[in-house]
């Protein structure tokens, strides 16, 4: 089957190029601190992209992507701090260890569905920092490992470079046969399996790829903070990635930027605007999350599509990856 490049894809490519150019030029007007913040947005972009592959496109819920970030982050930290590797050279290794971890989680995940899978990934997110504390001779334990510092500019371009590469790779993957297989599995496992899609292979591979991308996000995260310890990958990180993915819109790549900006920049904006009362920040942020879920349940991407009258297929699913068993 030949794939034709339709109008919406062309417009999509154009939009990506425009946004990409804007992102590339932005740091010249920013301070070093803001460039680091921009690099953190890139980290969340990559992580949310990763989560979207396994949850938005393949329908397997994961509340534990912080764990995969931890695996990548610690790989980078250990190679850099203990073995003197160049930090960028560690990224492919982090991706590989991430992939392996993803497969390790993906295999038992084949037996679990819906809420049980969600809670298992939740458990993984909690277990990985504990493992890091346990094997402290490798990981530095709670005192962690310090990494070389970098300027905000370096971090920004590395972060967005990684994000850009991952975005392109994800787009190519999802356009092709694997992407169709993933979507088929999300929509109906029985139908997919009857059509010859191997559930075991594709579900595990989706976890693996998703984890690999999240691992590289973790590597960048660790470099942005020039430090790693188990607290860096606490549960809130996984929750924020999930929030970002849903706010952005599952099953769509366009919303990922919105989701990343939402979870990284909104809390900062709230803190800056509330000088005396830092206590009100979580209250407002939580309220905004609820509001967004009430008004835009399918996320920003859905809003964008409705506004631009794009194709009706993507993002219209009201079926939850948590499953509708027995209802």
């Amino acid at each position, binding site marked *: 089957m030949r794939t034709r490049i339709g109008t919406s894809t062309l417009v999509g490519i154009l939009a990506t190029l425009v946004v990409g150019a804007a992102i590339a030029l932005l740091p010249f007007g920013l301070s070093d601190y803001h460039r680091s913040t921009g690099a953190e947005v890139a980290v969340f972009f990559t992580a949310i992209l990763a989560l979207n592959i396994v949850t938005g496109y393949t329908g397997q819920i994961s509340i534990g992507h912080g764990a995969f970030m931890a695996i990548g982050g610690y790989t980078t930290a250990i190679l850099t701090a203990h073995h003197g590797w160049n930090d960028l050279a560690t990224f492919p290794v982090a991706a590989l260890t991430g992939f392996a971890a993803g497969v390790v989680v993906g295999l038992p995940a084949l037996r679990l*569905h819906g809420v049980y899978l*969600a809670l298992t990934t939740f458990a993984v997110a909690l277990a990985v920092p504990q493992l890091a504390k346990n094997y402290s001779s490798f990981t530095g334990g709670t005192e962690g490992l310090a990494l070389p510092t970098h300027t905000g500019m370096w971090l920004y371009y590395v972060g967005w470079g990684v994000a850009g590469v991952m975005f392109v790779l994800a787009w190519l993957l999802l356009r092709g046969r694997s992407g169709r297989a993933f979507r088929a599995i999300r929509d109906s496992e029985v139908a997919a399996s009857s059509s010859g899609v191997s559930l075991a292979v594709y579900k595990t591979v989706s976890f693996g790829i998703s984890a690999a991308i999240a691992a590289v996000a973790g590597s960048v995260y660790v470099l942005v903070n020039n430090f790693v310890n188990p607290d860096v990958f606490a549960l809130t990180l996984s929750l924020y990635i999930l929030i970002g993915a849903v706010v952005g819109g599952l099953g769509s790549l366009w919303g990922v930027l919105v989701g990343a900006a939402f979870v990284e920049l909104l809390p900062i904006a709230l803190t800056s605007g509330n000088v005396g009362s830092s206590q009100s920040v979580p209250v407002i*942020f939580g309220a905004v*999350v609820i509001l967004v879920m009430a008004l835009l*349940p399918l996320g920003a991407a859905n809003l964008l599509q409705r506004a631009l009258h794009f194709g009706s297929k993507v993002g219209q699913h*009201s079926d939850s990856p948590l499953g509708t068993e027995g209802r």
Partner: protein
Amino acid sequence: MRARPSSRWIVPLVLVGIGLFLVIGSLDSALFAQQTVSGLANGGIYASLAVALVLIYRATEVINFAQGAIATFTTYIAWQLIDWGLSYWPAFVATLAIAFVVGFVLELVAIRPVERRGNQLTVVIAAIGLLILVEGAIGWIWGNNIKFMPAPFPSHIYNVGGVAFSRQDLGTIAISIASVLVLWLFFQFTKVGLAMRAAAVRPDAARLVGVRVSWMLSLGWGLAAVLGAVAGMMAAASPSVLLQPSMMDGILIYAFAAAVLGGLESAAGAVVGALLIGVTLNLLASYVSWVTPQLLLPAAFVIMLVVLLVKPSGLFGHARVRKV
């Protein structure tokens, strides 16, 4: 596929076996007995919160991440009432009533608008948003310092055969079991309970017979908040838990594991699961040297996972038929 008759008895048999093991071990060694009893006491703290989670899951199929924070919030209300001069048990009862209203209102204001147009995942995200909001609100209203919460059962230590346990430990376990019983009675024998069960299992059919499904959901949240308040007040009474905004964060994690282990649809299962987790972790920590303190949290989940892989719907859960 018809269930084989013998498989119905496997779970109860295993539980009886575990019970026997614990009793024999306790008779054999005072240390074993002490660790078992401490484990049961810890399990008692997780149990009430686990039952609250089960309640909301049964009613809405939503994992309520905010359950612990709501429990903490209601515990702070109890603290405030006591600080204003009310004595313990009146404050306890008043808190239960207030907790019901809080749960009911939160469902109405934060969850129902989301539920209308979204799916389960959006509701879960809203629950996460609620968690962040409520914990922040506690710090905003009462500050982040630790506060002292009195214990309902005056401190009295019993010493039976070298094993020490406090009246509070017994009280916590008793109250968890009592709450499950009360809940069971409510669901089995009252009209409202029946309506709630109908609304949870077959919302469309329930509507047809006149059940106001959305009010049932709010009711469910209200009751869960009451259970959460019990959990919070019992937890704060324990010396290992201090009253602070993040009080229930750790307990929530074990409560999830317990609820899943017991089968998300079963309140009794949640209590059994909680007690099992409490005891098993204590015994592992005492007797298995490669289970270091850091590995206890993962161990709780490994237990949960092992049970799930063998029996995917948990100990007392019913195997669900997945619709095509």
